[in-house]
């Protein structure tokens, strides 16, 4: 997907008041949540073996219309917590509002990357709030399983930042 295509999609979402979108093609999987994060996860290109007889496509899951009146307005769909991706992991959440940075300076290496082992109290990232750099430390010793926020993105209070598998 080209940036131009992505931009067109985002523009379309904004223009049409869509809050969330998941797009899966053989080439890519796109998840967009307006006001939240944008993720483009490249899927491995797989060369398909010769065609075999088509298999009936199972109906894709679709939100069922609630039988009972939904509250007004309907609550946002309950999202699978990032934590569910990693049983036993600890979520490190943003304790303040600000901008998330993975490194102390633009040209410096990141504090941690996925797969790193970290100690309790080790700095994982900084959150800049009102020009103050706040270091966020790991609450546990463990392996960084996932970094949930892109460098330079704004984070709100309580937003999950890292998944850490305690060791």
């Amino acid at each position: 997907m080209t940036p131009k295509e992505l931009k067109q999609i985002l523009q379309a979402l904004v223009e049409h008041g869509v809050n969330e979108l998941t797009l899966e093609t053989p080439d890519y999987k796109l998840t967009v949540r307006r006001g939240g994060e944008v993720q483009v996860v490249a899927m491995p290109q797989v060369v398909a073996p010769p065609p075999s007889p088509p298999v009936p496509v199972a109906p894709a899951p679709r939100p069922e219309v609630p039988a009972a009146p939904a509250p007004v307005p309907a609550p946002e769909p309950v999202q699978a917590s990032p934590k569910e991706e990693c049983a036993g992991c600890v979520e490190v959440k943003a304790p303040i509002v600000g901008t998330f940075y993975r490194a102390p300076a633009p040209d410096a290496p990141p504090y941690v990357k996925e797969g790193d082992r970290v100690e309790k109290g080790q700095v994982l990232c900084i959150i800049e709030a009102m020009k103050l750099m706040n270091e966020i430390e790991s609450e546990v010793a463990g392996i960084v399983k996932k970094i949930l926020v892109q460098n330079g993105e704004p984070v709100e209070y309580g937003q999950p930042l890292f998944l850490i598998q305690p060791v």
Partner: protein
Amino acid sequence: MKKVLIANRGEIALRIIRAARELGIKTVVAHSTADEKSLPVLLADEAICIGPPPSGQSYLNIPNLLSAAIVTGADAIHPGYGFLAENATFAEMCREHGITFIGPTPENMRALGDKATARKVAREAGVPTVPGTDELESIEEAKRAALEIGYPVILKASAGGGGRGMRVVHTEEELERAIQQAQEEARAAFGNPAVYLEKYIEEPKHIEIQVLGDGENVVHLWERDCSIQRRHQKLLEEAPSVLPYETRRAIAEAAARLARHVGYVSAGTLEFLVDKEGNFYFIEMNTRIQVEHPITELITGIDLVQAQFRIAQGEKLWLRQEDIEVRGHAIEVRINAEDPEKGFRPSIGKVETLLFPGGPGIRVDSHLYAGYQIPPHYDSLIAKIIAWAPTREEAIRRMERALAETVIEGPGLKTTIPFHQKVLQNAFFRRGAVYTNFVARRMEM
């Protein structure tokens, strides 16, 4: 102004969204984790969580609020009422960060921030305040002062509040003993025996004047009568008051004069006590939009929250005093999630069945929806119902009609609707005989 961060919750957050939207300004609601599913959060263009439920860590968390404005690209903050609305430091920090604070200047707030300073400013502007003394040094001084002020007078503890250390004195004979008693009470309650003396105003009306200023020009939007209070909490307000036109005009003009004197910017309210003879005394100024602002909007046709936005954008006041015309009568009732039968004890719960009134002359400002869980962390105001009609009598009957068709129900949920229905039926209320101790005296509550 392109985008405003709303540093508040509940009905006032929704009110600000409405004003912003009508002006084409985007909205970001800053909210605590407890308000994640609230109507303002669901209806705003954006929302950002700024802390856990306790307001000290969320709605009063200045760094998180400013940071939220910065990261969401908001160029203005509306503080609503309560929380940080009258915090001069917060207004100053907004200014330092290049964010427009939608409200008065920090200088305005400081000039009017505490009662003592505000009284001084009022006297400078030639606006009467309740006559009184500083801390009393001697019985002789007290006697002289009381004679000058005129009986009855009231003794109040310098360190005090909440009625303790207070004594009403009707004659000079009672004075000495009363001072001794008041001092003893004050010492016991506050560890400080100092007392002072003030004119005692019997059965005063609580009248407040709405003003709008741009730092240079000030207009008043006439008064609201907020006498229906319980323990200093307003419950039902109306505009205009039943006072004679000359009294109303004198108070309103004094208020505008005071606001002009301090170069007031934005919407503000000046509170007065008015005695039975029509003498009025300035008490304090609220440098913010108020809960009861809709009744003024209904009788003048002026949108006060939009006016706050326009003034904050630097617009010069577009209204002259002669443009402001009062039409009809408006009454607001505050519907709180409280049980009036049990001393107004908070009664939180989930709203399962909801039907708001409609039809002619009815306005509803509420963040409720069917299925909403009222969080226990904040104040209990859940809806304001406002009725307008050509006359006071018709407005009362319209409000009775509206309350009769309102349904706010959920397991264990109680509201102040039955209380308001009793006030509206009260014969003293119906003939306008209201004053600050009305609820205690006429409702026995």
